[in-house]
């Protein structure tokens, strides 16, 4: 994996055409058990799609393809995205597929569809993601499930009885979804607590990130930034988790919830960790020709993407540290440094995720030993980081975060270019369960 620095090369031998981000739409993100508690993934994804259709006048339009997904998914929702398309105002002849890459689902949907557009396989596409922590699937135990399946296959009454007789009382307890990693049994928060301790990230630094996130998101809402990115749903107009009035002292008063059993001080609280959330997002993508033919704006282009994974089970890296590797490789491929980026969007799974990633990039040893560089990879200008707030304030319905990030970033870029008359560039980075990371570059012009 070393050797991040390579000669800049074009990602594809013969670049075909560019994939444009035309716009986006999401519903405000709600807290678990909040106003969307009775909304299914299908309801929310349909609402996000319909808002997008309304914003861009796509009623009855046959979009090339819609790709979206959910992390917490009922088995009946095997064709969730296609069902949402059929329930929406889009043409029922719009194809769709589901995908799932944990918290990176939404961004990966954008990347995959953009590539199809660049290859000429699609002229238009909608990427999306949805998750409901409120309406999460609750499964029956393996024992009960096997017994019921055996029962359903049984022909005789005797066999049926035998199948049911195999059920043990312990089998009757339902198994609720968890955020625990299957291979370690640790929750994501406990994993990140290990990484936080490894990099010596302080409570104050984490709370500062959280405070900024709330303040910046609130300011962006007040300025009308989200007027053409968010459509209210079920009476919720802004992200429910957003606390415009939070303060350093309020955040400092919260009790740590992760890493409390570690020898190091526990620093991760409900304030500097993302809450379980409900929500959905969509992004409209297209070729330039398609956008122009439909009199639609081009906010930015999806230039390239890089994915990475870390061995968090046996290796040295924390669960959510994959972007620390993906970003240097992605920037190197384009001969770019942090100075070449106008905006960086680093998903705030936890405040400390952002901070451990930044710390790794600033660390000489990490740069030399893990990235194969001469020294530290670089220092991020914090004024360019998550300028309109991120997941700590907005909330984080897992698969919906990628769409939120891409639409927000594309609008930031378009606004910057409109203000300065110069091209602008941004990096998006999302960490995900399973030690995954997906990163992408967006540019105007």
């Amino acid at each position, binding site marked *: 994996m070393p050797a991040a620095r390579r000669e800049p090369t074009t990602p594809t031998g013969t670049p075909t055409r560019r994939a444009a981000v035309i716009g986006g739409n999401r519903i405000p993100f709600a807290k678990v058990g909040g106003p969307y508690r009775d909304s299914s993934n299908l309801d929310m994804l349909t*609402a996000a799609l*319909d*808002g997008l*259709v*309304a*914003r*861009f*006048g796509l*009623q*009855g339009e046959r979009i090339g393809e819609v790709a979206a997904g959910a992390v917490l998914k009922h088995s009946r929702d095997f064709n969730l995205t296609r069902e949402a398309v059929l329930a929406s*105002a889009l043409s029922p002849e719009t194809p769709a597929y589901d995908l799932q890459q944990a918290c990176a689902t939404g961004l990966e949907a954008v990347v995959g569809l953009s590539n199809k557009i660049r290859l000429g396989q699609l002229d238009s596409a909608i990427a999306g993601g949805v998750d409901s922590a409120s309406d999460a699937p609750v499964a029956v135990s393996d024992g009960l499930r096997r017994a019921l399946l055996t029962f359903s296959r049984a022909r005789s009454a005797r066999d049926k009885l035998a199948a049911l007789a195999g059920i043990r009382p312990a089998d009757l307890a339902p198994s609720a979804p968890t955020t625990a990693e299957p291979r370690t049994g640790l929750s994501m928060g406990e994993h990140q607590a290990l990484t936080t301790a490894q990099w010596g990230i302080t409570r104050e630094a984490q709370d500062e990130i959280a405070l900024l996130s709330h303040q910046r998101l609130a300011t962006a809402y007040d300025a*009308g930034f*989200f*007027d*053409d990115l*968010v*459509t*209210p*749903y*079920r009476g919720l*107009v802004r992200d429910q988790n957003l606390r415009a009035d939070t303060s350093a002292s309020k955040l400092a008063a919260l009790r740590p919830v992760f890493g409390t059993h570690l020898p190091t001080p526990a620093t991760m609280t409900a304030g500097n960790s993302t809450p379980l959330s409900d929500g959905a997002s969509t992004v409209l993508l297209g070729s330039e020709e398609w956008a122009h033919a439909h*009199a*639609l*704006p081009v906010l930015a282009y999806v230039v390239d993407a890089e994915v990475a994974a870390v061995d968090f089970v046996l290796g040295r890296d924390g669960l959510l540290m994959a972007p620390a590797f993906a970003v240097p490789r992605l920037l190197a491929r384009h001969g770019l440094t942090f100075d070449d980026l106008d905006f960086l969007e680093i998903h705030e799974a936890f405040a400390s995720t952002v901070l451990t990633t930044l710390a790794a990039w600033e660390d000489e040893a990490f740069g030399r030993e893990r990235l194969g560089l001469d020294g530290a990879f670089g220092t991020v200008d914090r004024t360019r980081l998550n300028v309109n707030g991120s997941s700590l304030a907005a909330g984080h319905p897992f698969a919906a975060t990628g769409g939120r990030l891409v639409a927000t970033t594309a609008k930031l870029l378009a606004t910057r270019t409109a203000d300065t008359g110069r091209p602008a560039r941004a990096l998006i980075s999302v960490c995900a369960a399973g030690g995954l990371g997906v990163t992408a570059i967006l540019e105007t012009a």
Partner: protein
Amino acid sequence: MTDTYLHLVNSGFTKKLAKQLGLPRPTPLRRHRAGEPLVAGPVLVIGLGGQDGASTPQPDADALAQLLAGPVGTDGVRGTLDTAGWDLDVHRHVATTETVQAVVLVLSDVEHPDDLAAPVAALAPVLRRLTPGGRVVTISRAATADDAPAVAAARQGVDGLLRSLAKELRGGATANGIVLAEGVDVLAPSALGTLRFILSTRSAFVDGQLLEIGSDAGTFPADWDAPLSGRVAVVTGAARGIGAAIARTLARDGATVVVVDVPAAGEALAAVANEVRGTALQLDITADDAGQRLLEHALTRHGRLDVVVHNAGITRDKLLANMGRDRWDAVLAVNIAAQLRINEALLTSGDFTDHPRIVSLASTSGIAGNRGQTNYAASKGGVIGMVRATAPLLAAFGGTANAVAPGFIETEMTARMPAVTRQLARRLNSLQQGGLPEDVAEAVAFLASPSAGGVVGQVLRVCGQNLVGA
């Protein structure tokens, strides 16, 4: 929102009971349905000579009767409407046994109050044979200070005649007047466009009104069923109620519609946009740059902007003594200041010049006043002043600005009124019922249409001839 009383007095036992008790018995109004004929029955055109006035010269009545009876365009069902007739069942005389669907009283030639006698005598016996939902239309000229006193008296007399007649009619029938400014031809586009509107079910809740035709401006649409074809319209406050109905009606008439509402109303707004196959723009119209953003959206997405309907409005009712500055400011900011600023942006843009139309929602409160609504009435009175003064600024482009003043309309807002107050408010007009949002929308769509180019700076009331603010 349903008017239970209206249903009860028109069905079963309660219908008989209401009749015996002499209770008001409003008739359910017929609304426009696609494909229905303009007028379903005989149309009587009465001129200066009355029933037997063939000997009296009455050129306007003759010309109008000829057009109404004439065949529809020669090149198919709908041809060049300048020359095409309306193919109606037109009569100049009717037997005393025949029913009549509409009466057009052409009084544009009157020179003395005495001249009213013969036409009115011809009208009187027909009134009892007017079919349910019938129409009486007067066509007269505006009385001015330049007229000879007898001429002015005759012309202004029509006004009183019409308003009283409207109160006399029953069975959902209405009476409305077309008032031609001096020099405007009886067959001018706006005279005929207004006549079509009044004769049709589109004007179901317009009653006792006189609409002035200021000029010969305006053009006939290629298709009377899609008069807004090719036009791009913006409707503010379109997420629900009257605004949503306006968006639907403009879309039905062929317009591409941009629906606008505050971001907080975005969910309902998106549903309306998808229904009318338009685009949703979440925008606070009180923002300084609201006009530019409206225009930019319309131009970039749809290539043009032709019609702006200022429907967004709020109420913050309180007696003035208790009102406080915030309630006053909020209402004035949304209901009038925002409209002024948006109009200013449109007028200075150079992109609102192809026979543009501004239609603004006023209110009967703005005309007659309403206790507890000093702020609202000031803003709505302001709307009336604004359209009068804005219309001349648009005249050079063939544009118009007009207002529509709704009376009691069945909306979420009126549904929140106390039950008894609501029942009373419904009956306080000649049609003895509340109007529907689509009634207001029909009036807006008419004023937005190309044939209404000669209607400038007017206030069209959609109130069933409400007793308030006549």
